[in-house]
């Protein structure tokens, strides 16, 4: 099982993600730099969180236009699994690999806290180690996580089971429409989510609810 972590200047949860993939997958992932036009062969590509290029333009907009993202799109087209967390989710949206947009939090403030997530679809490569309807703990840390899609898109992704995680029990931290926290593409091989499962995978984190996500995808590809 091989994984690759995409590195762009300004990302800052890359080390967290590499640690999680190493601890759960048993070996460190390869990395791909922003200017790389080819991505090493792998079963999973992860775009971690942070503030790529400072997020001085629309979050993820510059990163989505870097050469490495064209390579990611090519791999996704071939069916390689891709996860984008937080800024990684924003980048996937800006790159057109997922539908919708992430706006500024409704509070207009950065928010870092633990929320509850409902696993809305356990029948994906990323969630098969959870049960449908299961409520898990997970931290969020973002300024622009307010998911939005137009009515038609929303009806489609809801209808097709593309909404994978929802903020549960009144813990929506950002005003996301339909409490959406994470979605997959129509084909089911690209996942984007705002929460940080990589920060809840071991005893030191105070819980391991993020672990099954990585176990699902790493195990599935093994």
């Amino acid at each position, binding site marked *: 099982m091989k994984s690759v972590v995409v590195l762009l*200047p*300004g990302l800052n949860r890359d080390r967290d993600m590499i640690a999680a993939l190493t601890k759960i997958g048993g070996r460190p992932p390869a990395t791909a730099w922003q200017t790389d036009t080819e991505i090493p062969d792998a079963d999973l590509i992860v775009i971690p969180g942070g*503030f790529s290029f*400072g*997020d001085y333009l629309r979050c993820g907009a510059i990163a989505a236009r870097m050469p490495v993202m064209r390579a990611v799109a090519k791999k996704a087209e071939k069916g390689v699994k891709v996860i984008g967390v937080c800024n990684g989710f924003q980048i996937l949206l800006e790159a057109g690999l997922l539908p919708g947009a992430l706006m500024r939090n409704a509070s207009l403030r950065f928010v870092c806290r633990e929320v509850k997530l409902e696993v809305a679809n356990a029948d994906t490569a990323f969630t098969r180690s959870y049960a449908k309807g299961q409520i898990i703990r997970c931290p969020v840390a973002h300024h622009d996580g307010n998911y939005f899609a137009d009515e038609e898109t929303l009806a489609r992704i809801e209808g097709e089971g593309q909404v994978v995680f929802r903020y549960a029990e009144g813990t929506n931290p950002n005003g996301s429409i339909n409490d959406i926290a994470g979605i997959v593409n129509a084909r089911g091989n690209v996942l984007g989510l705002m929460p940080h499962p990589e920060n809840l995978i071991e005893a*030191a984190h105070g819980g391991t609810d993020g672990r099954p996500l990585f176990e699902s995808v790493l195990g599935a590809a093994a």
Partner: protein
Amino acid sequence: MTIRNDIPITEDLIAAHGLKPDEYQRILDLIGREPSFTELGIFSAMWNEHCSYKSSKKWLRTLPTEGPRVIQGPGENAGVVDIGDGQAVVFKMESHNHPSYIEPYQGAATGVGGILRDVFTMGARPIAAMNALRFGEPDHPKTRHLVSGVVSGVGGYGNSFGVPTVGGEVQFDARYNGNILVNAFAAGLADANAIFYSRAEGVGLPVVYLGAKTGRDGVGGATMASAEFDDSIDEKRPTVQVGDPFTEKCLLEACLELMASGAVIAIQDMGAAGLTCSAVEMGAKGDLGIRLDLDKVPVREERMSAYEMMLSESQERMLMVLRPEKEEEAKGIFRKWGLDFAVVGETTDDLRFRVFHQGEEVADLPIKKLGDEAPEYDRPWTEPEAPAPLADVPAMDVADALPKLVGSPNLSSRRWVWEQYDTLIQGNSLQIPGGDAGVVRVEDHATKALAFSSDVNPRYCEADPYQGGKQAVAECWRNLTATGALPLAATDNLNFGNPERPQIMGQFVRAVQGIGEACRALDFPIVSGNVSLYNETNGQGILPTPTIAGVGLIDDWARMARIGFAAEGEAIVLVGAPARWGTHLGQSAYMRELFGRNDGPPPPVDLAHERKAGDFVRALIRDGLATACHDLSDGGLAVALAEMAMAAGIGATVNRPDGADPAATFFGEDQGRYLVTLSRADVERFLEEIAPGSGVSAVWIGTTGGPSLKLGEARAISVAELKAAHEGWFAGFMGN
């Protein structure tokens, strides 16, 4: 507009540079001629209070700065302390008070940026940050705006850079109405044998400029920070720098990569007084001259004068001396991260600081004397007046008082603030704000962790600077201890008013003496720090605020303590308290928050007792006996119990000593006290066998359990009610 370098140096110009007539005379004596305009700027940058510590140096020398674990004390970018296994923690706290009042978002943001740079300049990757913030009274028309701007500025920089903010302080007091305090702390982790210093070595080596381009922002910032405010303050906005955390994050990665390559001989970040301070420091420390060619400095604005380039405080810049054979490799690393890299000068053997611009020599100064010959003052000071004894103590029902206290501006939850900070990034945060100290595990080590706390009670310091100084150190030491950490060392951020006023200087002197005494008694050396004076507006000084930020080491985080009650039915033991548990109400939160009174002396600090009680409690935690622990501070026993209950959602029933005054018992702020909980199975053995030989009092005062907190005869207060009051104030105040 460009001012020529050869304009006449008038009295007005000298005064505008913050230089006194006798200081100017000192310059004339030193160089034997009139300085050029650029040279005048360089002297003003080097000799202002902020950079030269001219009023404080005499007293700072009295602080203990050494210890068996200290690798580097004050004088470098940050202090360095050995944590074993070949690793070191690198840390410092620094103020950004004046800029944050003028422009709260950028002032606070660049404060965070500056302190992070101090840490990674030494080769350490930042792993934790804290911020001690002090604002005016909540009702003051500017306070909300300042809170909102400062908090988002701190978050905006730290979150983007990627360091967890694990602790800090937020306080309100009318005495900060015109002069808020923003004290930023950062700590990093480095290999003990790979610390980088600012001392240049070798003649004829390239001096390299790295990072962001130089602009006109912050020209004269350090001089501004060394003056009092008046009503024209808004005109000073252009002296505040603008932060770019993205560039700083790239600079961090590039610097660490460059350091690992073996190319770096010396490195100094460009902070206050930018290029001037950093170049002079590198040369002077290495007994070398420096020659700078300003035409090579990367600039982002046109027609910048030499004066502006030398005094610019543009952020995210570094100066290095590199091994010439590694220059190409170094250039490659910086190009990869999209940063500027320019050879702007060289080291020389003439001990001169020579600056060239467009073919002209704009400065030629003796480099050592620029720093060494800075004026130093033994400012007159007066002994602070002894506080009058506390008069009558008004009574209030304990169950009425407690919700009011935990919901008061100064004791309520700071969640509204710290949820805007990324507390979890890097995946090592073991305790986030809300407890006694922030705790971060040492990455790649199975059991080790570091604890961080920042403390001072400015009202104590105002009433008695000496006791207040001692107390700030003791409380910081106690907060670290309450997690089970062994306090290693501290950094001090000394915020005071105008030192030219003898009573302010008296506050400073006595506070430093108190800090020194406490640090010696607790083996808690000061390894770095910063002094911020002239915190006055229209002649009104701030409360004396010597912030102490400390670092402690936890050997095994599986056995660290947290403040929340661990379970129902556990014994609550009060450690280190006098017979009546609490006695001292002078300067207490009870008097201040409930009755608006700031009278009486602050609680005295018995350092021998402090040490004994702390060592005893730490051993209890490390032996796995204590299931939870919390130190007693503002608001005394009742507030500490409430905080333990609220953190766990578990109540408690607590007795009261016979005949004792309930206010003093539950709200007294006697020092050197802790609450620990023990499982019922351990408590008899503890009280009969362990506590008696310790020389520290330990009293079983109650039991955890139930949904409410019952204190003595007072009616039970539900934990939910306490929590609503505690959590509600800040968000309500900010309007959301």
